[in-house]
C-alpha cells in the first residue's frame, strides 16, 4: 500500500484551498510575486517558519475590511458592535480550541514571542529576584531563551537549562534536579522546532507545581499540529502564533490561568485596558482586556478564529497523523541516502519536521540548490543557536510539513538533496 493511501484526509482537496501552492518559482528573486521568469513548481516545506493561508481565512480578512471594519469595545454604532462581537468571540474560539475556561484566559498578542515577553515583563520583573531561578531547556527557541536570559540579568534570577540527551530528548533526571525549591518558573518548548522532539509537558508541569513553580509551555509548534488541551497539560501559561496554523501574521495568543492573570499587573498601557484614569492614577479593565492596550489586531484576531475553524474541520487528531506520516517518511528516505545526518529522535517519535545536514554541503548552499528545484526549506540556526552550538554545527537545513504537503513533495525534497550531494561530492 502506498503511503498516500494512509492520508487521514483528502490532501488534494485541502491543497485546493491554498492558491499559493500553484505558484511557480525559480526566476528573478527580487520581483515580488510570480513573474514570467518563474518556471518551477513550488514545493513548500518551510511550514515551521510559517504556514500558508487558506481561502476561507483570506476571505475572513477581506470580509472584515469590506463589511464591518470598525474599532471595537467602546462604540455604540452598529459597525462597532459587529466588530466587537466578532473580535470578542474570537477569544472564545481560541479558548474552546485549547480547553481554556473562557475568554478571560485568552490574551491576543502579536505572536508567540510577544506572549513570552508579556509574561516575562508583567510577571517576571515583579516576581523574580536573586536566589530565584527559572528553568528552561537546552532546546528553547530564542523567543523564550533570550527573553528569560535577559529578564534573569535584570532581576538577578538564575536561568538554568535542562539538558538534551544524545537522542534529542529532555534528560528528565536532570529536570528533576534543576527544578528545585527556588524555581519560580519552568518555561519549556512543547514541540522543538529544530529536533522535532515532543516534550513531556504534563510531567514537567507536575514537577513545577510540586515546587510551587509556574510552567509556561511554548506551543508555537504544537498547537498548529496536534490536539493541545491546557487542562490536560496543567500548564499555567501557553502561547502560540496564528501564522504557523493557517492564520494571518500579526496575531498570537497567550493562555494564562485566570487567577494568575488576574493577580498580574498590566504590561502595555493605553486605551481599552483601563477602567478609570485621572492625571494621577489609573485602574484596569477586566481580563483579558487588561492586557490588550490600544486598538487591537481586530482583523487578525477574527481571522485567527477562522483559521481555527478550518483546522478544527480537518480535526487535530488527523492533522497530527498527517504530520507524523510525512515526518516518518521523510526521515526514512533521507536516512536511506546515507549522506544525511538528522538531528533529534527517530522518525516515529517526532513532530512534522526534520532538520539535517548533508555531508560536504553547507546548509545555506543546500537551501540555495533546493530552491533551484522549487523546494523551499529553511537553512540556518532556526532561532536555536545555543542548541546548534551543542550539536557542534553552525547551521542545518529543515524541512517541515503541513496539512497540504504530500509524499510526492517529500520525494522531490529527497531527489534534490541527492543531486546536491552529487554536485559537491
Amino acid at each position, binding site marked *: 500500500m502506498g503511503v498516500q493511501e494512509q492520508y487521514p484526509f483528502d490532501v488534494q482537496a485541502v491543497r485546493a484551498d491554498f492558491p499559493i501552492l500553484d505558484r511557480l*518559482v525559480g526566476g528573478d528573486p527580487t520581483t515580488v510575486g510570480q513573474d514570467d521568469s518563474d518556471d518551477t513548481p513550488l514545493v513548500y516545506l518551510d511550514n515551521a517558519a510559517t504556514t500558508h493561508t487558506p481561502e476561507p481565512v483570506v476571505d475572513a480578512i477581506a470580509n472584515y475590511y469590506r463589511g464591518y471594519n470598525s474599532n471595537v469595545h467602546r462604540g455604540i454604532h452598529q459597525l462597532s458592535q459587529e466588530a466587537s462581537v466578532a473580535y470578542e468571540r474570537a477569544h472564545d474560539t481560541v479558548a474552546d480550541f485549547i480547553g481554556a475556561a473562557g475568554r478571560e484566559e485568552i490574551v491576543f498578542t502579536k505572536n508567540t514571542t510577544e506572549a513570552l515577553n508579556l509574561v516575562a515583563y508583567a510577571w517576571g520583573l515583579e516576581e523574580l529576584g536573586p536566589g530565584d531561578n527559572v528553568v528552561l531547556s537546552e532546546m528553547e527557541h530564542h523567543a523564550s531563551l533570550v527573553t528569560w536570559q535577559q529578564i534573569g540579568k535584570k532581576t538577578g534570577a538564575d536561568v538554568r537549562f535542562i539538558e538534551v540527551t544524545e537522542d534529542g530528548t529532555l534528560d528528565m533526571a536532570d529536570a528533576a534536579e534543576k527544578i528545585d525549591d527556588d524555581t519560580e518558573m519552568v518555561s519549556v518548548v512543547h514541540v522543538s522546532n529544530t529536533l522535532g522532539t515532543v516534550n513531556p509537558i504534563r510531567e514537567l508541569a507536575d514537577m513545577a507545581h510540586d515546587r510551587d513553580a509556574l510552567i509556561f509551555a511554548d506551543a508555537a509548534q504544537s498547537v498548529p499540529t496536534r490536539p493541545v488541551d491546557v487542562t490536560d497539560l496543567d500548564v499555567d501559561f501557553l502561547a502560540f502564533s496564528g501564522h504557523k496554523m493557517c492564520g494571518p501574521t500579526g496575531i498570537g495568543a497567550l493562555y494564562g490561568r485566570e487567577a494568575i492573570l488576574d493577580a498580574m499587573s498590566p504590561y502595555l498601557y493605553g486605551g481599552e485596558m483601563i477602567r478609570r484614569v485621572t492625571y494621577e492614577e489609573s485602574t484596569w479593565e477586566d481580563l483579558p482586556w487588561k492586557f490588550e492596550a490600544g486598538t487591537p489586531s481586530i482583523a487578525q484576531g477574527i481571522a485567527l478564529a477562522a483559521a481555527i475553524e478550518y483546522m478544527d474541520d480537518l480535526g487535530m487528531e488527523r492533522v497530527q497523523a498527517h504530520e507524523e506520516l510525512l515526518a516518518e517518511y521523510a526521515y526514512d528516505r533521507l536516512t536511506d541516502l546515507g549522506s544525511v545526518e538528522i538531528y533529534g529522535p527517530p522518525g516515529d517519535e517526532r513532530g512534522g519536521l526534520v532538520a539535517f545536514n548533508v555531508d560536504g554541503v553547507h546548509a545555506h*548552499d543546500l537551501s540555495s540548490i533546493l530552491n*533551484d528545484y522549487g523546494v523551499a526549506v529553511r537553512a*540556518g540556526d532556526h532561532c536555536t543557536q545555543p542548541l546548534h552550538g551543542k550539536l557542534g554545527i553552525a547551521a542545518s537545513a529543515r524541512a517541515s510539513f503541513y496539512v497540504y504537503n504530500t509524499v510526492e513533495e517529500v520525494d522531490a525534497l529527497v531527489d534534490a538533496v541527492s543531486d546536491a550531494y552529487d554536485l559537491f561530492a
Partner: protein
Amino acid sequence: MGLGSDMYRQQILDHYKNPRNYGELEDPDFTHVGENPSCGDTIRVDVALDDGGETIDTVRFSGDGCAISMASASMLSERLEGMTIEELHALETDDITEMLGVEISPMRVKCAVLGRQVTQDGAKIHRGELDPDRIEE
C-alpha cells in the same frame, strides 16, 4: 531553473573544494577574523604588506562556511596579491560578484562579500582607522 544552479558553476565548486591560499601566515602585518552571523560563516585573513605598507604582498585565509563565502575568499586571495591598500578599499560588492562570474541571490550577498569585508576591516584596524569594537557585521 533559477540562480541556484548558476551560483554553483564549476569555478565556484573548484575554489570551494580546493581553496587557494588557504592557511595562516607566520608573521602577518595584520590578521582579522569576521563572521556572518546569519550563516555562521567565519573567515580569518592574514596579510603581509610590502612597499612601506602600501601594497599587499601575501594573503592567507582560513575559516569555515558555505561554498559562496569560501570560494569568494579563495578567488579574492589570488586577486589581492599586489593590490594597493587603496585598491582594496575601492572594491565594491559589484566587483566581487563580477569576480565570481555568477549572479548571487540577494540573501547570499553577505556570504559573497565576507572575505572582502574581513580584509578591509583588518586593513582599517591596522591603520587605526577603525575601532574594532565598532564593526557592524
